[in-house]
């Protein structure tokens, strides 16, 4: 492989990696309205949650371990 081709490959890889590394790809604190929506709460439907827990317990002989605090808005 020629050094020029290697150089081009390295620069392309660097550009791609730097694109992934920028914070613009992250959801910023002020952009979390959708994540904070009520429908994003895992416990919004108690009946569905109870059913899922029952199925999980029947299959795995274990229960719990689903605790997730908050609604995903990332506040605080």
């Amino acid at each position, binding site marked *: 492989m020629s050094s020029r081709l290697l*150089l081009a490959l390295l*620069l392309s890889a*660097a550009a791609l990696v730097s694109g992934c590394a920028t914070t613009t790809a992250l959801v910023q604190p*002020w952009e979390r309205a959708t994540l904070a929506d009520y429908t994003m709460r895992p416990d919004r439907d108690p009946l569905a949650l109870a059913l899922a827990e029952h199925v999980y317990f029947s299959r795995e002989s274990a229960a719990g371990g689903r605790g997730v605090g908050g609604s995903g808005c990332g*506040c*605080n």
Partner: protein
Amino acid sequence: MRSVFFFTLVLTLTATVSRAEIKVGDLFPALPSAGLVGGTVPATEGKILVVDFWASWCAPCKASFPALGKINTDYAPRGVVLVGVSVDEKASAYAAFVKKQAPPFLALHDVAQQLVRAVVVPAMPTTYVIGRDGKVRYLHAGYHGTTTDQHLRAELDVLLAEKS
């Protein structure tokens, strides 16, 4: 070849640390040119300013309103200007929240999220205490109940005690 690897490393690291967050000691952007709507932007030149970024979907923001309202009542007569800045994407969400909750201080709307993008708040809510020189003196990321309330009051007392 070594220089190519070095260049690659520098490019990657530069991209990683390119976040331009307003921190303590930095000059806070001028409010009149920040595109705020929903009320008259107060004159802040030479005054101690408290800017609180909030959103209608942010529960801790809502929890902080009574304390901020009391701070506004106590410190506004002493020359402190307190401004709440909503970062809601939807103007209807901001309007409905203000109508229902009636925040006890001036609550403006960063309608294009211009100011919050310039400031790059680290969390919701975030409160900036800005000195008479326009520089950020204190910063509170999140609301931690009476602790935040006490710190804000102590910081405002320090700033008010300084010569104008």
